[in-house]
């Protein structure tokens, strides 16, 4: 490990030790900041992937962040025809609206009846199928076909 303050050697922040990256992210109360922090460079991204995993598996850690509301009327096609973007309303930052890019374009026509712990329930009426989807990790899991639910 290079000595802190080694003369004449420019400091490379991308080499910041993981435990310090995690300490910094603990001080970001807006989830948008967390996401943008992790998309700065590869090493920060992989350091935070681990803490993302922790956040996704621990409801108590999710409480570090205030919820973002998905704005259904802000689904939009982007220049890239295979992607679409969503509007997210931040409750803590004076109603600031973020645009979440790079989502699969199929989501444009799907219906989201609810969410839990960061997972969105996505219903595709055309197929028909139900999936749960995490918009930040992009993890997607299929749920059993609709006809297995007697009430539907």
């Amino acid at each position: 490990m290079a000595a802190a303050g080694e003369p004449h050697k420019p400091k490379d922040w991308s080499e910041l030790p993981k435990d310090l990256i995690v300490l910094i992210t603990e001080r970001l109360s807006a989830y948008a900041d967390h996401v943008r922090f992790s998309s700065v460079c590869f090493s920060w991204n992989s350091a935070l992937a681990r803490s993302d995993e922790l956040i996704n598996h621990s409801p108590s850690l999710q409480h570090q962040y205030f919820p973002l509301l998905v704005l259904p009327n802000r689904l939009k096609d982007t220049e890239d025809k295979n992607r679409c973007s969503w509007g997210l309303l931040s409750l803590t930052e004076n109603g600031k609206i973020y645009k979440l890019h790079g989502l699969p374009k199929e989501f444009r026509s799907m219906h989201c009846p609810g969410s839990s712990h960061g997972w969105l329930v996505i219903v595709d009426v055309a197929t028909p199928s139900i999936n749960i989807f995490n918009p930040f990790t992009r993890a997607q899991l299929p749920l059993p076909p609709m006809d297995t639910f007697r009430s539907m």
Partner: protein
Amino acid sequence: MSSTKIFLKSSDDKTFEIDETAARASETLKNIIDGGCLDGVIPLPNVSSNILPKVIEYCKKHGGDNGSSKKIANGGVDKDKEILPDYDEEEDKREKVRVDELKKWEEEYMDFDQQVLYDLMLAANYLHIKGLLDLTVEKAASMIRGRTPDQIRENFNINSDFTPEEEEEMILIEDEWDDEWAFD
């Protein structure tokens, strides 16, 4: 209070003097001192002579008192004092003045560029100086809040090392300021 001198040797072999009481602000140094294996000079192979005086300056100011930044976080109110029967208003005022003075000192102390911040954060982490680590981590977080990845890269002088494909896949959160879709 003992005023025994401790000598610290930087990674580039320069020796610095510090009072033992000040050195105790660092958990790492405190353990070395208490461990009794102090052999005149403590070598610090992870801290260079560029940054060690800055670390010593912090330790001198805090003199083994690791709780100072916590007091600031509580708005300068020391919880223990509130439950004392003889609550001294004058003492409370003096404490507030002391905390304000410390805040001002910290503001001036923390006025440096990102290169120094990097070294100081690493040194605080290595030497286990809780208050200094809190200050440096908070400064880094303040350079990230509300900023786009490009602005963060600029602040910390780093280049994006994602491949164009990874960049494409990246979830991007952007501020949306246009009111094209304003609520009706």
